């Protein structure tokens, strides 16, 4: 950064302007590559099927809501999927926040018999690829009678080691003094945890919440296999079914993609700083 500032003093400014122009041009081209498929998705969703096939890259003419109407009256309950996706991601996120924060607090602050073994076991599973759990967890979920229910896509996925590992790191870094002062005032462990530690941990909890929500929202393989009936599906397996059902009806398929992506992109637009910081924070520190 500073190097460029130092360079600039020695170089003629026309060269600098050209360099800037090239830089911006490059970034704009890259941004177009990212954005154009999305623009095209939206445009196509407002076409008729015939128009979509005959004039793939022109503006919709006539402008038509047929695709959305067909989708609304069709067999595929896409708004239901949206709701299912949202509630599954929310439930799993809450489950992770509650269980991981309590467990991480014990691992960070308490001395107890078996602590090293428990922590070691949890950490060692961080390295195991998820496919190892696929078949046995399917059988477990089946035996519990959870197949095709929201339990299957919320509970097993909340058991991962990442959350507890991440929060433990954060708790270890908190100053001890406040907790000790509260203890002298006679507060019990649970009260200290809820009233003092959790409020201090808000940024870490928010990061974990964002990561957990995104993770569940985007999960594909597991819901494809454990959700069976259309009304219980989430967006990811639902959309792949939609693609199969309307193979050549591109306008309808794109309308489905629009409905699925608008809420996510809207949330992202509002909370992008928080989301990006969460992802990078967990990567750089964790």
């Amino acid at each position, binding site marked *: 950064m500073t190097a460029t500032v130092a360079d600039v003093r020695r170089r003629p400014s026309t060269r600098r302007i050209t360099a800037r122009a090239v830089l911006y041009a490059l970034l704009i081209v890259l941004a177009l590559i990212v954005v154009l498929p999305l623009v095209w998705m939206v445009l196509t969703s407002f076409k008729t099927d015939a128009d979509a096939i005959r004039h793939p890259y022109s503006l919709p003419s006539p402008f038509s809501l047929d695709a959305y109407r067909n989708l609304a009256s069709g067999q595929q309950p896409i708004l239901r999927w949206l709701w299912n996706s949202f509630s599954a991601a929310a439930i799993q996120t809450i489950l992770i926040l509650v269980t991981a924060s309590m467990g991480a607090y*014990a691992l960070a602050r308490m001395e107890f018999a078996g602590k090293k073994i428990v922590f070691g076991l949890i950490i060692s599973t961080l390295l195991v690829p998820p496919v190892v759990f696929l078949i046995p967890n399917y059988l477990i979920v089946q035996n519990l009678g959870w197949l095709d229910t929201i339990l299957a896509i919320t509970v097993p996925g909340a058991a991962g080691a990442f959350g507890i590992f991440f929060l433990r790191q954060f708790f270890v870094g908190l100053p001890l003094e406040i907790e000790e002062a509260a203890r002298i005032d006679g507060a019990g462990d649970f009260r200290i945890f809820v009233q003092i530690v959790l409020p201090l941990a808000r940024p870490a909890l928010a990061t974990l919440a964002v990561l957990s929500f995104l993770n569940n929202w985007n999960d594909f393989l597991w819901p494809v296999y454990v959700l069976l009936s259309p009304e219980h599906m989430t967006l990811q397996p639902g959309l792949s079914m939609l693609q199969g059902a309307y193979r050549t009806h591109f306008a309808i398929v794109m309308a489905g993609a629009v409905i699925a992506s608008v809420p996510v992109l809207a949330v992202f637009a509002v909370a992008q700083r928080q989301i990006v910081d969460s992802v990078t924070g967990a990567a750089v520190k964790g």
Partner: protein
Amino acid sequence: MARRRRRTLTAYLFLAPFLVLFIGFVLAPAVYGLWISFTDWSPFRDVQHFIGLQNYADLFTPGSTTSADFWSSMRATAIFVVASVPFLVVVPLLVAVLLNQKLRAASTFRTIFFAPYVLGVAVVGLIWGYVLDTQSGILNHLLHAVGIRGDIPWTVDVPWAWVSLVGVTVWWTSGLNTVIFLAGLKGINSELYEAASLDGAGRFRSFTNVTLPGLRPVMLFITTTTVLASANMFGQSYLLTTGGPGNDTRTVIMYIADQGLSQNNMAPAAAMSYVLFAFLAVVSIVNFRLQRERVEKRRTR
């Protein structure tokens, strides 16, 4: 003594909710899966027999029912890893370097580049399934417009299917590695760049002598996670090529899921997942060693 026992009890009460989940859905399945892989487990049979390493031996015996398909899916996975990882590391690195120049719209560009990542693979599959469609896809229409005819079979023939799978993955996930690299770049001490430029280093020299060494830890993180992510690829093939043509782009995750959950060959599939685990562990260790050696070599030089 009683006090210590009470402390232990309190700690386990705090840990209990997590441990219930952890034991039920991580530890138990890890052991259960291993057990299944040593048996002739079948959902159509009441009793299963312990058959030792037979399922594993089958995988390494040419001509057995599973070995050819398993290894061809391992090959497909390896092709995808080798073809995608360089792009998934280099493209985000270059974009991050561009974004790290003092720009007025840097955060807007960052937001745009990251956006596809939040869409999820299903939406990405729908959009690109249409873009890449051989007859009606916009890509072939655009190529026609600039004079390239002959309808490229983007998703239905190799090597084009690989180009598509890699391209779509780069489009979808580059933003993630970009923002991580960007955070790494911000962490490099700017005095190092000043020193380099005082020594007469140009942009390229300060990139190779300051930026790259400064990014070492981030680079290790990114290459490791990217290799693992590519080795676990499933959705792109499932949605765009359905593993085709033939089974050329059927990845190992796709094959394990299909064998275990659709074909009810759960015992061989469990064995395959452990073989894959062993492979990935070796790859991770080698990657870690290589990168650490490079760091050490630099230090001694």
